């Protein structure tokens, strides 16, 4: 007996794998952007959606990853994909250092600090900090990634790289949702005092949420650097953080399918209205307001987790 869920999964995979063959390179590249933002959204979802922490500076973690990749690749010629874990670690370390002293701040104070960190990072990059970041022109000449001897160049080739990375992310984050760690984040979001009162080290988990989200954003930064071969500070401004944040909340805070759908809508839809050119953002802003008003919980809010209950309880008639 094949379950409907399995069939749906097979069909989706089939569509995703064959999709680029029906599209021109421009649209494949749009899909690549959607993929990158979807993974960024999923990483922010850990912090905002699951833990309820108000982070409007996620692009700074993304930036640290991208610049780590760019610097190590251009200076030491280390193959770019090898650097993925290094990028994750550097972004995670950065998150740990900055989040530690501010993690106890209440919601809106945390929000402005994350915006501030985002700005500080951008300004530091522009000012060619430590003489490494190349100032406002950024870093160029980043190597193309190489997988098993094949160099990845075309949008279609990148498509599969991003697809694999996205699939791994979704798989792991779903596992995370169904775990002690994932639940702890949710307890925190629901009621911090009750969570602490149930024996959960809330400060630790807040920090951990930040670090996990940052590690992933850092790894995406690597892929982005490899795809663009040139990166500059303006790609990591506050505006990027807003987009990622909107993807999470609009799609459905705390829900993996929701966040992916959010990325499709926020990154994909404006492409459909390219003819509107300069009025595009005007409609985009209006749509954000309208969507929040008509679907306050996001388009696909999370569904309750299902558990396989132990046999002796599942069938029992309780309440005696």
């Amino acid at each position, binding site marked *: 007996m094949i379950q409907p869920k399995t069939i749906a999964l097979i069909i989706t995979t089939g569509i995703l794998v064959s999709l680029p063959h029906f599209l021109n390179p421009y649209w494949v590249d749009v899909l690549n952007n959607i993929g990158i933002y979807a993974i960024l959204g999923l990483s922010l979802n850990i912090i905002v959606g699951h833990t309820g922490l108000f982070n409007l500076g996620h692009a700074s973690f993304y930036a640290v990853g991208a610049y780590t990749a760019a610097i190590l690749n251009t200076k030491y010629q280390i193959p770019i994909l090898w650097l993925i874990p290094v990028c994750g670690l550097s972004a995670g370390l950065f998150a740990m250092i900055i989040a530690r002293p501010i993690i*106890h701040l209440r919601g*809106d*104070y945390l929000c402005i600090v994350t915006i501030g960190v985002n700005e500080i990072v951008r*300004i530091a990059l*522009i000012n060619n900090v430590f003489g490494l970041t190349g100032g406002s022109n950024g870093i160029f000449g980043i190597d193309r990634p190489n997988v098993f001897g094949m160099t990845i160049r075309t949008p279609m080739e990148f498509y599969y790289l991003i697809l694999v990375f996205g699939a791994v992310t979704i798989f792991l984050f779903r596992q995370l949702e169904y775990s002690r760690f994932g639940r702890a984040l949710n307890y925190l979001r629901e009621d911090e005092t009750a969570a602490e009162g149930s024996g959960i080290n809330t400060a630790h988990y807040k920090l951990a949420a930040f670090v996990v989200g940052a590690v992933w954003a850092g790894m995406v930064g690597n892929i982005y650097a490899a795809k663009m071969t040139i990166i500059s500070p303006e790609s990591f401004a506050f505006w990027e953080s807003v987009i990622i944040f909107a993807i999470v*909340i609009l799609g459905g805070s705390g829900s993996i399918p929701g966040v992916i759908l959010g990325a499709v809508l926020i990154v994909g839809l404006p492409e459909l209205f390219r003819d509107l050119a300069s009025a595009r*953002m005007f409609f*985009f802003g209006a749509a*954000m307001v309208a*969507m929040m008003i008509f679907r306050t919980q996001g388009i696909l809010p999370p569904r309750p987790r299902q558990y396989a209950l132990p046999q002796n309880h599942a069938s029992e008639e309780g309440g005696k």
Partner: protein
Amino acid sequence: MEQFLQQLTNGLAVGSIYALIALGYTMVYGVLKLINFAHSELVTLGAYLGLTLLTSFALTDRMGPLLGILLLAVMVMGLIALVGAMLDRVAYRPLRQSPRLSAVVSALGASIFLQNTIMLIYGARFLNYPHDILPKMTIHMMGIDVPLVRILILFVSLVMMGGLFFFIQKTRIGTAIRAAAIDQGAAKLMGIDVNRVVLLVFLVGPALGGAAGLMLGLYYGQINFTMGWSYGLKAFTAAILGGIGNIPGAMLGGLLLGVIEAMGATYISFAWKDAIAFLVLILILIVRPTGLLGERVAEKV
């Protein structure tokens, strides 16, 4: 010493503009616990409307610089107040009972919408305020020559802040606003119509923001549709620095931030000017998590 005093007056003038903008953030936050991200666009709109009204009615030519600008300011403030009230009606009021993050995204959306509306109307290029509105005078004080516009901005801002302070502290309606910010339920039990308090806050805050936009146009001479963003962010920082929701805190935070920034740009590094403000903010929040004048609230369990 001369440079120090120049920077001090410059910082105070810019800081007073920050403070005016910060008041809009802090008043809305105080009553609704909402960060009105679109407030910065109201500042931009104030700058553009100021320019439009100035050139289309030639106010300063007809009435002389001071009176003309005064009338201009009144008109700008009135119009921006209306836009502010509309903003609340359309983008925020339907979300009063919703999760707070939804309201934040709505605010961000409204901000993008307004910014691009301005861009579609006025274009993406920088526009210039006429050079000759205010006489190019300097006033000699404390051994330095201070431009008239600087003194004017500081003076007018302080008058407005004083007026607001008096309104909030001494009048019946002002006390009602403070009460609603402390405890909406208890305020309702006093017979205060909290919806009208919110409306009022969305009239007064934007009016001050509009005035700030006009001042920015006059002070720097150049305006752009994205200008509100960075001033808005600074002002929001100032509001947090002073303790968000706290009106004297916003004033103090604004002035302080203006001075810190001016000094930082001169004595530390101009390129790092914007980062210095945030760095100071972070350091202060680490020591005082609810800002300089914010209350320490112990959660009731």
